[in-house]
């Protein structure tokens, strides 16, 4: 266990991170493409209509993975922000920064596909339902977080302030996840994926959904690695320019 924790901390060294991520990125990208094409293709072409929801059940293969990733990416960003504030590892701050646009994209997909699913099923594309509203606020936190990074020139000051903002916003990530449990009202149903067979989606939908979830996760991981590598290179370029007196 101690060895695993130690190897995790080794990613905090940018040079080591660049080496390891460079080797992993092609594999993660390839697996992401396979899982996404497999999961979405299986779900779209290979599953039947639901007896109540008809063909709209196929929206589950994009909506649920996107929504799940939207929440979990923010939780990951909060963890990275905490590591930055406590340990001052630059890669953790850059990981949170790199993840934010991907998380915002996942949240946008969840909101749009949710509206497209809600219109025929609920008769409304939007309602001020606890889960929908908390997701909208989560979207605002993603956008605000990226905007704050862009607004501050000093990288360490930007990392400090965005970390605090991220931790504040993590409340809404938790609320988004558990809104349907906290408030037993609103249009949105409970979790689609559950360990309880009574409430879990039927097996015929569950298998492609899990594959699609894996695809979304692997895509996030590939984009995260790529974007962290970009941020590290931009930091190095900035350092060279500063050392050469060219300005940041």
């Amino acid at each position, binding site marked *: 266990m101690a060895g695993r*924790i*130690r190897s995790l*901390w*080794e990613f*905090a*060294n*940018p*040079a080591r991170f660049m080496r390891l991520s460079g080797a992993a990125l092609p594999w993660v990208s390839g697996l992401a493409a396979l899982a996404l094409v497999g999961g*979405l293709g299986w779900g*779209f*072409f290979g599953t039947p*209509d639901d007896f109540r929801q*008809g*063909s*709209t059940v*196929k*929206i589950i293969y*994009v*909506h649920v993975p*996107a929504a799940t990733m939207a929440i979990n990416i923010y939780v990951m960003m909060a963890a990275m922000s905490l590591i930055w504030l406590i*340990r001052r*590892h*630059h*890669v953790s701050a850059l990981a949170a920064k790199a993840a934010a*646009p*991907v998380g915002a*994209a996942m949240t*946008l*997909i969840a909101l*749009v*596909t949710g509206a*497209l*699913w809600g*219109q*025929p099923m609920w008769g409304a594309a939007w309602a001020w339902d606890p889960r929908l509203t908390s997701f909208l606020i989560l979207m605002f936190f993603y956008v605000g977080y990226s905007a704050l990074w862009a607004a501050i020139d000093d*990288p360490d000051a930007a990392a400090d302030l965005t970390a605090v903002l991220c931790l504040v916003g993590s409340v809404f990530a938790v609320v988004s996840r558990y809104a349907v449990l906290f408030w037993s009202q609103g249009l949105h149903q409970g979790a689609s994926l559950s360990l309880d067979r009574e409430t879990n989606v039927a097996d015929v939908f569950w298998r492609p959904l899990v594959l699609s979830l894996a695809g979304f996760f692997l*895509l996030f991981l590939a*984009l995260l690695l*790529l*974007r962290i*590598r*970009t941020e590290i*290179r*931009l*930091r*190095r*370029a*900035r*350092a*060279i*320019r*500063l*050392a*050469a007196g060219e300005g940041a």
Partner: protein
Amino acid sequence: MPDLGAYAAYVLASYAAAVVVLGAVIAWSIRAALRARTELERLEARHGRRRAAPAPAPETGPETAPEEPMP
């Protein structure tokens, strides 16, 4: 193509939205990565490769695995 019935527009629009948004993020990320790499290579070629002092091997955890300095 499966028969999506009366809900075809909603289902197809959902998949299209996901493809467009994810495609945009992927394209933006790749473009930014290529530009950053090109810019760094250009600067390194002009000013020489800036290297940090060699770090000791991280044998015992984060305290002995200092980061490469960043500005």
